[in-house]
């Protein structure tokens, strides 16, 4: 750095005057440690200013005259103004502090309430979802009931076959809208890799027609499945088939079978 130019800039004179920023003060302090010319310059500027300012004062008081006061309490010596309690000012400050405290308290309370509202509104949303689900459930059940009660419904019980005698199912067949409702309550869950497949049968000759597989059997709650059936079915059977279903029923896996009793 160009020390001469730095000195010539006049910054050191301002340094002694005491009106530079804290950062500039620290920079100059560091430079003084590093460059004796800068330190020397500051010392001379200071000496000149000390002499000039001293010349304004004709005399100075003796150090001993106030030496005793050095270690007294701050307030006694510094405060030159007459001490008058300023009640308006004190009251003002007290009021401000109270007001501030009140504001903070109000703000806290407000935040707490907001959190509570948030919690309550989340709970409300969850309840609404539950109510909605319950309503749907109820509507579905009503539909189901209405469907089963329909006067056109033919009820076909499907009895357990062979090794699966303990199983059963029931088909409600509405010929008017070509739909069957299969009640699979008496069937076990399909094992992994297997699905229930529903068959419509004609007896003479024995011809099975697939009505499809029940892929969501295990997850369904009421185990009642609506399946469309446009065939002139004479019987219904349910077999356990590999996933995806089969072209024709695997007779060893025929669980339940039921014959349509009469044709209205």
């Amino acid at each position: 750095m160009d020390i001469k130019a730095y000195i010539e800039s006049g910054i050191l004179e301002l340094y002694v005057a005491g009106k530079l920023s804290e950062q500039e003060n620290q920079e100059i302090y560091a430079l003084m440690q590093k460059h004796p010319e800068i330190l020397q310059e500051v010392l001379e500027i200071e000496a000149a200013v000390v002499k000039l300012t001293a010349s304004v004062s004709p005399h100075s008081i003796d150090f001993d005259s106030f030496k005793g006061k050095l270690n007294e309490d701050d307030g006694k010596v510094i405060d030159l103004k007459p001490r008058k309690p300023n009640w308006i000012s004190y009251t003002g400050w007290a009021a401000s502090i109270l007001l501030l405290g009140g504001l903070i308290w109000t703000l806290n309370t407000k935040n707490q309430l907001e959190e509570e509202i948030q919690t309550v509104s989340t709970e409300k949303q969850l309840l609404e979802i539950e109510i909605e689900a319950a309503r749907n459930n109820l509507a579905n059940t009503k539909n189901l009931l209405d469907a089963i009660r329909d006067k056109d419904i033919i009820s076909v019980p499907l009895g357990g076959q062979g090794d699966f005698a303990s199983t059963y199912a029931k088909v409600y067949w509405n010929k008017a809208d070509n739909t069957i409702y299969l009640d699979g309550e008496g069937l076990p869950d399909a094992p992994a890799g297997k699905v229930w497949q529903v068959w419509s049968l004609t007896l003479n000759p024995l011809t099975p027609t697939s009505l499809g597989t029940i892929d969501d059997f295990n997850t369904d709650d009421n185990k009642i499945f609506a399946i469309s059936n446009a065939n002139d079915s004479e019987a219904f059977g349910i077999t356990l088939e590999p996933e995806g279903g089969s072209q024709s029923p695997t007779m060893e896996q025929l669980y339940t079978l039921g014959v349509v009793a009469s044709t209205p």
Partner: protein
Amino acid sequence: MTDIDRLINQFKAKDEKAFEKLYQMYGTSIRGVVLNIVKDDDIADELMQDVFIKAWQKSDTYNSSKGRFFTWILNIARNAAIDKIRSKAFRQSVQNLDADNFVNIIMSRDNLDHLTDAIGINKFVTNLGQKCKEVIELLYFKGFTQKEASEELNMPIGTIKTRNRSCIQQLRDMVL
């Protein structure tokens, strides 16, 4: 480490002897600055005591990396004096001196014999240009910043810095 650094370390360690030496070095200057602001000898005496007592009590807050000791105590003095003249009690009191700057105060002294370099100071203030008087008054006695001085004197901020440098140079030539 300069002698003054050593004195200041002792002062920070609450050594009264060291503080007395610092007072001998700077007391009159501080009184000069205070007097120039309050323009009353008795109040200046009172304030100067307060300034040094305050400096003593706050000695642990002084740190040489933040500025010169003289500059530190100069700031305390200017602030105390400015607070004083703004106080109600002061405004109601009669002022002894109606000089408008440090030069008038120096010139109004019948003799300057108490100063070893009285001749230099006398010569300096007599020959000092008006601009120098103004700049020195504002920067050293009143504690204006460079920017405040530039506004007060209607002078570019850079000019304040260079003019002040040349004024202090003239002062150094005559008193050092």
